[in-house]
């Protein structure tokens, strides 16, 4: 009997304490209206406290790049917070260099708005907009790559630099209960400003690529934001080496189209690495450009051509082909898009050919 009474008493006390905590939280966590000062008074936002800095900014149409939706797993949503961010969280530590920590850089998804904040946001991020786009075309490019054309609503336009990327937000599907956000490079030219085209390679088990490949149909609406990224053409060279592997072809295609459309006098060599012939795409497009333009050279390179491919082009490691075609990189720019392994290997080769490392621009798949 005594034991039973003790259990009942402890349960009762625990319940009362739990209720008190819930009530206290309601009052204590009510941060009220907070002010976010951006770039020393350039802009000022009044937001309801309690949400993350990332979502508070997004609610005010300021979109900071983020690929994980606020789970602190992508490390992209860095923002410099000069005041009001509170202590650095353990979840942020792996993504910040000592210099960034010293400068007050934080992951905006981990900073909760609890009071007034002073932040610095790079100007270019103010150009990022949100679009509800309609999928008007889906093209099978290879066995695992599809191209999507996403058209904006009447009157909407986008201004981007060739090489930049968009972020797609998925909806829950099957067992995937939460939305996911992933980045994909734009493959269309900046002049085509009422839509964007994205090239998406299926990642086995990938949340977003599975959604795009298996669930998105022509006519569906997709929420996208952009443009993002600093992988775009710098105009202080007349000679470019362009390299891509897999879906890394997307930003390179956009760059080439932009240069051609603007009639810029640039000498370009584009080396595209693929495994076998079934992994090549936009072949006709690039071969035609090669034939019609004296200054554009297209070099597809297969690492493992199938016997049926009857391949007579370049084979082997993309780095070997690069060394064969680029003897001196003096005064040249290089734009690389592909897997980290490919890019690291190519950078190693380029620096041995007098390429200035700061003239090598790349978009690693990470």
């Amino acid at each position, binding site marked *: 009997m005594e034991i039973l009474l003790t259990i009942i008493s402890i349960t009762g006390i625990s319940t009362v304490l739990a209720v008190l905590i819930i009530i206290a939280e309601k009052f204590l966590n009510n941060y009220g209206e907070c002010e976010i000062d951006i770039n020393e008074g350039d802009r000022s936002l009044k937001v309801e406290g309690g949400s993350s800095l990332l979502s508070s900014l997004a609610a005010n149409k300021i979109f900071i790049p983020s690929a994980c939706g606020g789970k602190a*797993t992508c490390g992209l949503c860095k923002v410099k917070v000069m005041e009001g961010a509170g202590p650095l969280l353990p979840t942020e530590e792996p993504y910040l260099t000592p210099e960034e920590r010293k400068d007050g850089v934080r992951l905006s998804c981990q900073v909760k708005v609890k009071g007034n904040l002073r932040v610095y946001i790079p100007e270019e991020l103010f150009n990022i907009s949100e679009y509800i786009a309609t999928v008007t075309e889906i093209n099978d490019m290879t066995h695992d790559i599809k191209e999507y054309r996403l058209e904006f609503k009447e009157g909407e336009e986008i201004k981007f630099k060739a090489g930049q990327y968009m972020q797609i937000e998925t909806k829950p599907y099957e*067992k995937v209960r939460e939305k996911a956000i992933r980045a994909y490079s734009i493959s269309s030219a900046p002049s085509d400003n009422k839509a964007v085209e994205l090239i998406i390679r299926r990642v086995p088990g*990938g949340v977003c690529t599975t959604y795009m490949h298996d669930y998105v149909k022509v006519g569906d609406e997709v929420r996208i934001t952009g443009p993002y990224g600093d992988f775009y053409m710098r105009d202080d060279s007349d000679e470019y080496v362009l390299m891509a592997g897999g879906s890394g072809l997307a930003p390179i295609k956009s760059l080439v189209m932009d240069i051609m459309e603007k009639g810029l006098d640039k000498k370009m060599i584009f080396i595209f690495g693929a495994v076998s012939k079934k992994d090549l795409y936009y072949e006709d497009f690039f071969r035609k450009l090669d034939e019609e333009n004296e200054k554009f050279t297209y070099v597809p390179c297969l690492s493992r051509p199938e016997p049926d491919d009857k391949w007579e082009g370049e084979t082997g490691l993309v780095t070997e082909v690069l060394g064969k075609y680029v003897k001196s990189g003096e005064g040249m720019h290089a734009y690389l898009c592909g897997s980290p392994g490919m890019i690291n290997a190519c950078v190693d080769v380029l620096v041995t050919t007098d390429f200035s490392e700061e003239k090598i621009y790349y978009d690693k798949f*990470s």
Partner: protein
Amino acid sequence: MKQSPGLKRIQENMQPGAFTAHGFLGDDDRALKDILRQDNVVVEKLNLSHAQIAGRMQYFTDHGKETLDIPVTVDDDYEVLVDDHRGEIPCPFADNQKAIKTNTKFTNRKLGITMYWSDLNIHMIRYHGFYEGKGSFFRNDPDVLAKALGLID
């Protein structure tokens, strides 16, 4: 014994749709603590450590990374092919680690065994003793893995 709330949260991260479309558990309905314990027993019986197994996997993956998409022969008996995809994947053990989506196809020609693992698998084996749940695509039974890697006869 009941599973701790910490492991329960980690097991939720391993469900389909949390970090990957298919998750890390396959059709294994055991609690995570049991998956970890049972695999640990197997590894201890082999007189090995998870770090040794992960280290050997890393050895082959590193060889594969040198040749990008081209298969490479390592130490005469093994063939390795490494392939990478866009993006990074966080560790479901919430240890703030993430791995590039790199997959290794590994073949022990002598034994005729082919296995697949990701960079994240190497990390999860090394630091968490986790080989994924049964039925998961990247699940490799530790005894078969150790044998294929040439760590045991």
